[in-house]
């Protein structure tokens, strides 16, 4: 079976216009992955399944990469007008300034593919493909690969549930593990646990009473 690099070159040879790049995995496992642009993903996936024999999508999962804030010191040179010896001159001057750069975070969907067609005769490492959303708040749509691999059906629902990636074209995108009324996405890195896990607005008397009290408190706090 082919390595990720070979798959990449074959893909690009067949479909030169798609945006696919190789992400190198530095760990000992050396399972490199292909980063696929979301608009091309469905085509790439169908090609992988039908032409390259990756008929089995084993694992589908999400990863949350937070906004990365990097501070770096930069030296910039600029020309300033200065009074030098009474005459105004433009002088070059180096200024050191700290620049804060925020790399926007994104959500990632990772698919691990194997080939059953080539089966036990041809051992191979997983082919990993990844898709990234634009950011973590409003541009969280990705195309669903469930039409290509049915095994992604529940796993994409799970990602939607736990990470909040919206899979376009999924036939039944509902929460899988959390209940339907749940609001947050608990697997996100910045998810804040509730104080009291037992506290849920359920139709039990004392809990309802507590919920009412909290609501009143909140209202009073708001008024103050």
């Amino acid at each position: 079976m082919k390595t990720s690099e070979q798959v990449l070159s074959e893909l690009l040879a067949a479909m030169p216009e798609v945006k696919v790049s190789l992400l190198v995995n530095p760990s000992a496992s050396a399972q490199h992955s292909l980063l696929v642009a979301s608009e091309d993903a469905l085509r790439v996936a169908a090609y992988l399944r039908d032409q390259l024999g990756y008929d089995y999508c084993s694992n589908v999962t999400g990863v949350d990469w937070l906004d990365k804030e990097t501070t770096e010191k930069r030296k910039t040179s600029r020309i300033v007008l200065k009074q030098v010896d009474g005459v105004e001159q433009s002088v070059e001057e180096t200024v050191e300034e700290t620049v804060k750069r925020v790399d926007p975070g994104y959500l990632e969907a990772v698919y691990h593919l194997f080939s059953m067609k080539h089966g036990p005769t041809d051992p191979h490492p997983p082919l990993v493909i990844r898709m990234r959303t634009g950011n973590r708040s409003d541009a969280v749509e990705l195309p669903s690969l469930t039409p290509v691999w049915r095994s992604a059906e529940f796993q994409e629902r799970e990602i939607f549930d736990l990470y909040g990636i919206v899979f376009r074209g999924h036939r039944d995108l509902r929460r899988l593990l959390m209940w339907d009324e749940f609001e947050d996405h608990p697997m996100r890195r910045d998810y804040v646990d509730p104080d009291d896990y037992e506290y849920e607005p359920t139709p039990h008397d004392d809990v309802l009473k507590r919920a009412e009290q909290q609501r009143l408190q909140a209202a009073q706090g708001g008024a103050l």
Partner: protein
Amino acid sequence: MSDLAIQSYLPPVIEVESQDELLEVAMGPHHPSTHGVFRMDVALDGERVVRLKPVFGYLHRNHEKIAEKTTYLASMPYTDRLDYFCSMTNNWAYALAVEKLAGIEVPERAEYLRVITAELTRIQNHASAIGFLLQEMGASGTPLMYAFREREIILDLFESLSGSRMMCNYMRFGGCRVDLPAGWLDAARQVVAGLPRFIDEIEALLTSNEILMARSQGVGILKPDLAINAGVTGVMLRATGVNYDVRKVDHYGIYDRFSFRVPLGEHGDIYDRYMLRVLEMRESVKILEQAIPQLPAGPILDPKSKPRGFRPKPGEAYGRIEAPKGELGFYLISDGTGNPYRYRVRPPSLINLTILEDMCLGQNVADVVLIFGSVDIVLGEVDR
């Protein structure tokens, strides 16, 4: 890319005369045969199933989040609790993924111990799966009790090895936690010698039973192309005739050294799944008979691995094994700290349920229970 024609595999649509006359039944979460807390929202036309939606999450505890908040080692006991029937194989899959991530070698003796415990696990899992399937079929627990009698003996072995019957927490990154206690190998040899008799007993009780055949042959048929596309693994997949056993595909551990065969079904129905479990038990006994006498002396843990302060280099790895229920994979991303950045379990139980709807539609309500039982799931793994 709307012009793209992709062949998708979708569940069939069952035509009904009138949507109003359907009987909507919520099977579960408290139902005798949902193996825990699991719900199927079923719409019945008479006793024929026309719609089925599985509902998960009653046992959800966000295992993955817990694992991302603790160290690599501290997740090991939690893996026991995924598929609580097969803690040994869960341990192995997790250890394998970490070993891939950090490039740790496993000593030979530890590999043998892993194979022995994993195959014992497979036998007791398959035996209980058959027992539960027959329980669903209404056999008042007799096959289940026979299976549990045998399982009890195997669990005794696990207890004297690891200290616990079900929550073994036995494997470590780069080996196993403790070496065999005195006399364990003889006890294991005795247990393995008794296993063929037990399998014969189960077969005498069930295999040629006409009622079992009538109930299971031709029921819950799964086609191989759908099975592959839906990522079904394990016995479910091989019952359709697809030859795919991760032990043979990935050659993980030291499975190369043993001669064993992979039984394959043909029809992909419940009877094939039942028979494949029986045959796989026989193959596992074969592996055990080879592995126990060959067990070499030596260390059981890679000397470089340490219990505390384990920090693999940044990167990611996906490791998988053939667990009794299917392909169990762990996907880990390390950011160089002591906790995994991303920890993901690929649960075979959940993914094998993807096609539950496809298999059940158009069948009888009594068959739904059977089909569900033949998938062999554990809710601890489905919901995580």
